[in-house]
């Protein structure tokens, strides 16, 4: 079980890192295609609020899991 937890830790870390360029590129693409106020507000919320939370929490969590910090959970 511990090995699975650690392997998944790598997955969470990759997901956390990967989401940053993915979201930014998508935002740039969509805003360039249609630079409406609605688009700006939507992507601002995603980039300023949602993305940092997801990226930070997944990366930190993934690193902890990878290091075996969650091998034993109380």
């Amino acid at each position, binding site marked *: 079980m511990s090995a*699975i*937890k650690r392997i*998944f830790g790598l997955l*969470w870390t990759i997901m956390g890192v990967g989401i940053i360029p993915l979201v930014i590129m998508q935002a740039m693409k969509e805003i360039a295609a249609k630079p409406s106020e609605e688009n700006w*507000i*939507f992507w601002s*919320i*995603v980039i300023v*609020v*949602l993305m940092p*939370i997801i990226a930070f*929490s*997944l990366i*930190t*969590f993934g690193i*902890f*899991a990878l290091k075996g*910090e*969650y091998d034993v*959970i*109380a």
Partner: protein
Amino acid sequence: MAQNVTNVSHTEEVSSTRRVIAASSVGTLIEWYDFYIFGTLAKIISEQFFPKDNPTAALLATLATFAAGFVIRPFGALFFGRLGDLIGRKYTFLVTLVIMGGSTFAIGLVPGYKTIGFFAPAIVFILRLLQGLALGGEYGGAATYVAEHSPEGKRGFWTSFIQTTATLGLFLALGVILTVRQMLGVETFTDWGWRIPFILSALLVGVSIFIRMRMSESPLFAKMKKEGKTSANPLAESFKQKDNLKMVLIALLGATAGQGVVWYTGQFYALSFLQNACNIEFVQSNIIISIALLIGTPFFIVFGALSDKIGRKYIMMAGMLIAVIAYRPIYTIMYNDANLKTKEVIEDKTVNKMKYEVKGTDSLITSVTTKLYTDGTSFKETVKHKFPVDPALKAALPKDKLKPETKKEVTLPQALYYKMIGLVLIQVIFVTMVYGPIAAFLVEIFPTRIRYTSMSLPYHIGNGVFGGLVPLISTRLVEATRPAADLPPADPLAGLWYPILIAGVSFVIGSLYISNKTNNLDVE
């Protein structure tokens, strides 16, 4: 004699239990009521304070909607959580109640944009932020307070009463608004009557403060304070110490993020889907949701109590997994049942009516078409075309200003109406599975000295951010499947991918890393 003493002691304990649950739940319910009336009356508030022709006011309206919903709540969690771990639970969640009630009451008194101009949206915006801040501090306090009074083995049951308040608060808000509107009439309500639900909050909060003032401090916190074991810096201990940060991350990613999206999908997205994707008539769609919520609400307590027996994790994870698997089939049935393309129209029951009238300098053509289908479904389409009487002015207007306004309303026959209630109820059951045990789960994974701070943040990020963004992101995902602006979306169910993805990830993380063991609360 000994038997009598035991009975008296038991009776006192039960009475004390009820007081603790009542004092905490009533206050939290009122805070949810305060928070929801702003959202429910958003359209009227927008007209009164945030005129669309003023870009700054319009921007403030958007910020007020989003900022108070998810940016400010985690800050409230940090601010009041810290306070609760430093000075105590009782006084802190008393303060949040006063701030929430005071802000709500004040919103009801702020003069409109027409009277004081830009100050109106600015003041309302600040008051709305205060509401978000107070809400961020309230839940953690109430859950911690009740949990720290709970006997071992009954914490899930006790705290589940706090979990019902978010749903009951919505009921109270809708009930008060509909009653006042009914009593005053739509016109008076839109003019000034909408202020009554806000002003009424002062009375509700007053009662709740009176009840809470009479309560004693949480026994665990009082003991810890007496022994000098309280945290000197709850924020640093919560988020800088690895052992605790680990649990904050698990709570967020493995529980509250998934719980937040399941909650929002079952309670809010379902209504939006019925009204916008299925075009179900306004009153019927609201009744469908209300009945499903009413029947489903006791299950918060059922699953809270069950989590004391079989563990919090199993119930929460089961709720997330079933939701992930079942959402698309459930919504497919909902969509198909209201889809007129699959129904047979009774041709001789189709009625078209058209009305032409002049309102001031504008002409208004209203066209109403009603249809009846063989299964008993009825459909009404109202098209309103407004344009200036003066042809020169009409010619000068851009095309989008001349676009007719179309409203489609589907009214389901009784059998489909009950079926729809059942389908929403299933989603509410998912909500109760993930939400019922979560307060007990959160309080048990953090130590008493930093519990308020540590549990409040993941709860409000999970619910406020991950859950709060369901309407915005889901709408966006559906819109992305629309081939052209005037064509319907290719996949009206595309909005479900967001809750499915978040709940799916949360399920995997929760299943792998969360323990099903129920922990005791201590002061160490």
